[in-house]
């Protein structure tokens, strides 16, 4: 399992600030898994961080990592 921390308005779409999903080996798999479980995320912009570092689609997910979904904010 992967523990995923959710930030900003994504919490409203996922329904929680923390969610567990099945382990994925790549960031691409993680995106697919998230979109399948939470279709509204397809319309959202967000970054993925692994152990407090933002990662790109080419990166691999390490077992036991803490994953975070980080959207942009625009309020001021």
């Amino acid at each position: 399992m992967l523990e995923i921390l959710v930030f900003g308005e994504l919490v409203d779409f996922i329904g929680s600030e923390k969610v567990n999903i099945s382990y994925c080996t790549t960031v691409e798999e993680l995106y697919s898994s998230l979109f399948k479980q939470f279709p509204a995320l397809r319309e959202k912009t967000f970054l993925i961080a692994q152990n407090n570092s933002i990662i790109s689609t080419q990166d691999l997910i390490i077992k036991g990592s803490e994953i975070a979904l980080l959207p942009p904010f625009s309020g001021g």
Partner: protein
Amino acid sequence: MLGNSERYIRQIQCKEFGLKGQAALSMAKVLVIGAGGLACSLLQYLVSMGVGKIGIVDYDTVSVSNLPRQILYSAQDIGLNKAEVAKHKLISLNHNTEIESFNLKVSNSNAYDLISNYSIIVDCTDNLESKYLINDICFLLKKPLVYASLSKYEGQVAVFNKLGDSGNISGNYRDLFPVENAKPILNCNDVGVLGVLPGIIGCIQASEVIKLISGVGDVLVNKILYYNMLKQSFKIFNYSSAKCASMPNSIEEFKNYNYSILKECSWDDDMIDKNILVELLEGNDNDFCLVDIREDYELPKVIHSKVLQISTEYLSNELPKLNVSKIILFCQKGQRSKIASSKVKLFINDSKAIYSLSGGVYSFPNNYLKY
């Protein structure tokens, strides 16, 4: 500055900061863009602590709904320009700070001149269009940019374009959110903000400005801070800089760059306004449908027999099935529906006209709204 030693004695006593830090503050020129909630707390500290020169840019006027979080303003200021009111209030805090106000909206045509005259830029704006624009001109002019932004109970802070010891320049907003990936849908969602949050984030932003000027401590370079007020949690995420392909490469490119892709809302023929809406709601024409593209939890709801709720991801499948020739999409403020209407037109034949409701749900008369 030495004549003011007594005023600043407590901060001069911090040995890492000292007289040197205070002297640096008195020489600093800081431009604050946006004079809303973030700026109201940030400005009070920058002025009180002795920053030499501060510019404040905002074209907006004070409104009653600003008052719970924009604590420089009071009821008597409603209708007045924020930058000018802020200047007036701040002058009385510290006569040693020179304060300039600019009653204008930052744009491609004025940003170069505005920013060139200052050493540090602070982004306190409330929209993505301005944030990208400020980011790009600061990158081109190599000006350090102290960024912050809010969403409901959460805030972000980062420092962009800091010149490193080896002459390298640190990351910027587009390293985090390149415009190619941006979905402006986020900008429209009127999620609200709890009054104290901009005060907290504005103070963190002010501390980054003071640290940048004085050289004391580590600033949020190649890092972005996410703060959650409900949990009182701070999380710092590292990122690396990579050249963003769509970023303007020169001042000329910047001046011609189209930032309106991220604009809140702009009027065109594919939009209808509240007067046309009322005609439809109260007239005899039944050949239309109103589609609420917001999420289930978004309020107020619209109570009318012609309203359907369809999430954006299902529009291209569901809209062709509607047996009407006019479809009006609406969201919270009008931005999401504008983007959605341009997208679904690609899937729908010309027999149906797709419109976006300007101003979103609040364009409906009150008697149709349920909170």
